[in-house]
């Protein structure tokens, strides 16, 4: 099952990943990180498909994408 880890101290709350996610499983937390930004969170890990689009769009390299088992790679990156 794929999933993402979002570093809440690197995330600056720009919300680009929230819009980019094709599964719409990311949302902004109501808590703040080290620099005072609201950070993004994965709120429904069961629907994450590990496409990496959120990580690709993140300007702060705050998102790590991992998986175990079979994953489909949807495009070359």
């Amino acid at each position, binding site marked *: 099952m794929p999933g993402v880890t979002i570093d809440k*101290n690197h995330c600056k709350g720009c919300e680009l990943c929230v819009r980019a996610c094709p599964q719409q499983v990311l949302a902004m937390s109501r808590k703040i990180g080290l620099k005072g*930004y609201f950070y993004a969170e994965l709120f429904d890990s069961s629907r994450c498909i590990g496409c990496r*689009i959120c990580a690709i*769009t993140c*300007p*702060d390299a705050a998102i790590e*994408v*991992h*998986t175990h088992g079979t994953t489909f790679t949807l495009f070359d990156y």
Partner: protein
Amino acid sequence: MAEQNTTIFARPEAMTETITHYCPGCTHGIIHRLVAEAIDTLGVRERTVGVAPVGCSVLAYNYFFTDFLEAPHGRAPALATGFKRLRPDMIVFTYQGDGDLASIGMAEIIHAANRGEKFTAIFVNNAIYGMTGGQMAPTTMPGQITTTCPSGRNVAQVGYPIKMVELLSGLVTPMYLERVSVHDPQHIVMAKRAIRKAFQYQIDNQCFSLIEVLSTCPTNWGKTPTEATDWLTEHLLPYYPLGCTKDFGTKEDNSGSV
């Protein structure tokens, strides 16, 4: 048999863990990562030197695990020329904004390109001067409001925005010129390919490369990061067409767009 977690996307090694000083949603972060990914994939980190500009990315040297030189405003192509001529075995890249490259540094980039200096130039075009607080740039759009054209860029007084890739395409010296964008994931993927190709050309000792990257500046455009990507799509993409105008690798000078 327990199944291991595999990381399929992480911060590239050539990029440090330092929290950047860039604004939320600033595409500098994406472009830095694409450059770092290219350096990692091509395995050249230990022989790469970057040249930092004056602009928001003046502190770029804090975010890469490579040696760096800090250039005076606009002069990065000259520093890169001096360095690369003496150390052609090293991979040299410059990273400049629109003020640095298209305004004060216009002579330096044109001549470095024309001489065919074999370094890779990353040109971040966000149609504004970011670091100094949002003044007009040579790439600012007609009617776009900035602090030094508060009624919008008046083309009758200051002319039209400069299209750097097209300008350099007029040079005869073979080089690789492409304009890309990082406003959405699909375009980021294509931008990464162009940046990697540019570095590969340098590794193969082929030619000068310049990748112009259309970027957002949410803070100085007065928009949220997502609104800024929409503004880029609506206003910058029509004027600054994406694609490759000169590709050293093909027989013809012009190849089709990506």
